[in-house]
C-alpha cells in the first residue's frame, strides 16, 4: 500500500515540478507548485511526520502559495516572453543539470550505506507532542530567535508594499 502511494505521489510530484518549469503562465506554475507541495505532504505522512505534513499544507499550501496566487492575480501577470539565451545556456545547461542530478542520485544509491526501508507506521516520531517538546527544550533558542525574522518580514512587507515615502 505505502509503496503504491509513494510511487503515485512521487510521479505526481515530479510531473508537477516539470510542469512548473515548463508552463509559461505564472498561475499554472503556481498551481503545479501546490501540487508538488500536497504530494510531498503525503510523502511526509508515509515517513511518519504527521505534524510536518499538516504544517506543509497549512503554511506552504495555505499561506505562502495563496500569497503567490494573490500577487499574480493582482499584477495580472501574463505569460512570459521567451527570449533568446546564450549558446552555452541553451546547449550545455541541460546536460550539466542532468549530470548534477545523476551524480546526486549515484551518491545516494551507492555511497550512503545502510539506509532503511520505509514502512508506514513502523515509526511515528513526528507527532505534535514530540515536536512541541523538542521545540521548547532543545530548540528553544532558534524558536525564540525566529520570531525576530517574522517581525522583520512583517515590517519589510509593510515598508515596501504600502508605506508612502514622500
Amino acid at each position: 500500500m505505502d509503496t503504491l502511494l509513494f510511487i503515485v505521489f512521487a510521479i505526481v510530484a515530479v510531473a508537477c515540478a516539470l510542469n512548473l518549469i515548463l508552463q509559461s503562465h505564472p498561475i499554472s506554475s503556481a498551481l503545479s507548485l501546490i501540487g508538488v507541495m500536497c504530494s510531498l505532504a503525503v510523502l511526509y505522512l508515509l515517513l511518519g511526520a504527521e505534524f510536518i505534513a499538516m504544517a506543509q499544507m497549512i503554511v506552504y499550501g495555505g499561506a505562502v502559495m495563496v500569497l503567490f496566487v494573490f500577487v499574480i492575480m493582482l499584477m495580472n501577470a501574463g505569460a512570459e516572453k521567451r527570449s533568446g539565451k546564450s549558446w552555452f545556456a541553451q546547449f550545455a545547461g541541460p546536460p550539466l543539470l542532468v549530470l548534477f542530478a545523476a551524480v546526486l542520485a549515484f551518491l545516494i544509491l551507492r555511497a550512503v550505506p545502510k539506509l532503511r526501508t520505509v514502512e508506514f507506521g513502523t515509526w511515528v516520531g513526528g507527532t505534535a507532542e514530540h515536536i512541541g517538546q523538542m521545540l521548547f527544550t532543545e530548540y528553544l533558542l532558534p524558536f525564540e530567535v525566529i520570531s525576530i525574522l517574522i517581525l522583520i518580514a512583517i515590517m519589510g512587507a509593510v515598508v515596501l508594499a504600502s508605506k508612502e515615502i514622500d
Partner: protein
Amino acid sequence: MPHLPPVPLSWYLVLSAILFVLGVAGFLYRKSIITVFMSIELMLNAVNLSFVSFSYQLRRIDGHIYSFFVMVVAAAEAAVGLAIILTVFKNRGTLQIDEVDSMKR
C-alpha cells in the same frame, strides 16, 4: 491487492535530489521573476523532503524541527520577496527578469 516490496529510503532522497535539480533548472531558465521565485520555493521543498527522510533514517525528529524552521523562513521570505517584486512591478510594469537591467557598467 498485490504485495509490493517496501520502498527503500534512498528513493525518497533521489526524489528530493530530482526536485532540487528541477528547481535549479527553473531558476536558471525561467524569465518571469515570479516563476523564478517559485523555483526557489521548489528547491526549499526538496530540501525539506531530505530533512524528513534523514529523520526517518536516524529515528530522530531534529529533521522535522529543521523543516519546520525552513517553512517559517520560507513564509517570511515569501512575504518580503513578493513585496519586492510588487515594487519592481509598480516601477517598471514588467515581470521579465531580463528587462530589469537598468544598471550600466
